[in-house]
């Protein structure tokens, strides 16, 4: 990949004014879809993504049901107005792949044996995309699953790290993704300390790879704190209320 312009200036500021280990502003609003069993709206920089969970519920068609555990179905979809040039509402190959990797990043956290012959449906709708939408989608979906009261081993938190101007930075934005050197989205279970999603495009040498992975996990831990406080806020009012109990 050829970089057309410098993405980090002399003072270490990135194109959107952040320093290299700074996350974009993240806000999570739990329970915003009234019909869903669990839901969350995540605003991750300019990303605006809704995740909604339905289930555990009966499986249709019935032959898809598994006798020993729950079926998980996941759809990642972008609204036509979410991108710079309009996106056709029909699912693309990219969305199909992302739906699959998101499902596989969330499944390890779910105790599926608790719901045999049932299905859990996870729907992720990107209303506005700004780079890193799969990570933001995973983080929102994980909160929505917890909001739906589904038994989980851990939360799943996701964040990307990458290489921009030969520096390792966390939480790659749209410009850095398109013009930068490497992008590595990671999903992580913060308490079990296990990685559940790992992708990379771009080139990293082995040193860079190690730093990049460590930095991505640091980002995941920051996202985890925000996920946790969003759930506490919904169920206990505020953090203080929880401590008083």
């Amino acid at each position: 990949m050829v970089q057309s312009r410098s993405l980090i200036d002399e003072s270490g500021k990135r194109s959107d004014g952040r320093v290299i280990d700074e996350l974009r502003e993240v806000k999570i609003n739990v329970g915003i879809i009234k019909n869903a069993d669990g839901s969350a709206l995540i605003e991750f920089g300019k990303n605006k993504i809704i995740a909604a969970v339905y289930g555990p519920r009966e499986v249709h068609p019935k032959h898809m049901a598994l006798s020993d555990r729950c079926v998980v179905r996941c759809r990642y979809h972008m609204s036509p107005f979410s991108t710079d040039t309009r996106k056709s509402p029909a699912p693309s190959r990219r969305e199909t792949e992302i739906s699959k990797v998101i499902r596989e990043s969330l499944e390890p956290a779910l105790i599926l044996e608790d719901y045999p012959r049932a299905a859990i449906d996870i729907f992720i709708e990107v209303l506005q995309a700004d780079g890193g939408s799969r990570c933001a989608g995973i983080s929102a979906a994980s909160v929505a699953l917890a909001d739906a009261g589904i038994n989980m081993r851990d939360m799943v938190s996701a964040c990307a790290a990458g290489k921009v101007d030969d520096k390792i930075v966390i939480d790659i934005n749209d410009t850095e993704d398109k013009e930068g050197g490497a992008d590595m989205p990671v999903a992580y279970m913060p308490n079990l300390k296990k990685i559940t999603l790992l992708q990379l495009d771009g080139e990293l040498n082995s040193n860079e790879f190690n730093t990049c992975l460590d930095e991505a996990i640091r980002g995941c831990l920051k996202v985890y704190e925000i996920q946790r406080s969003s759930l506490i806020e919904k169920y206990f009012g505020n953090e203080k209320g929880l401590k008083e109990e």
Partner: protein
Amino acid sequence: MSLSKKSTVIVENLRKKQMRESISAGKRLDERGLDEVRPLVIELDVIKKASGSAWVKLGNTEVVAGVKVETGEPFEGLENSGAMIITAEVLPIASPHVEPGPPDEETIELARVVDRGVRESEMLDLSKLVLIPGKIVYTIFVDCSIINVDGNLFDAASYAVISALASSKLPVFEIKDDKVVDTGKTQEPPITTIPVSVTTVKMGDYLLSDPNTEEEACMDARLTITTNSKGSIVAMQKGLKGNFSVDEVKSIAEKARVKGEEIRGKLKGLINIG
């Protein structure tokens, strides 16, 4: 092939009986009067990547609409006007009864009825959106995502579309050396009127405004009427297997005019247009 089908939302017989009794006493189960519409909340400019956008809440029904502008060939037979395409999708996040996949007949009807109101009212003066007559014109997409379903998608989607369109800032394209160039400037959309749709349903002998999901599962017939800023009727759609008498249609039309004007006033207050 279209076939009559069972409602996916099931309302128990007891609840139905309760609903009918309550309605005959002039009150609905959610405490509304028969003519009363649910609170309407319109939030503008929620999607920065769109040229115009709106997040509309009509009671618990929620719709996000966004405007995207491109250039392309005009439609056949309409060589001297811009193209406008309105779509609607009921997202699977919106209700436990929605399945992902291509739109079903109800969703296609929804998108077409919303489109008809905007198109037939000539809300946008499309003749002002032409770059090279017969060859290159503006293409205006208004896409609607329904994110929570609680009845009356027709009106909620229509309010989202007109709010997004009326508050939009369209990019200015120019032709330079036979190529389309985005000048980076924006222009006001050529709005001529604000079409507002008002839906009324019939349950037994009673007429109800703005039905919620539970009421829609029990209704016999539905009539959507769109009026323009002058109070003229510009589009209509009757739905379901029930029927209306001539007097009922006339009273529904009158109600659509009055309610339409109220909602138009609300939108004008938000957007600051004449």
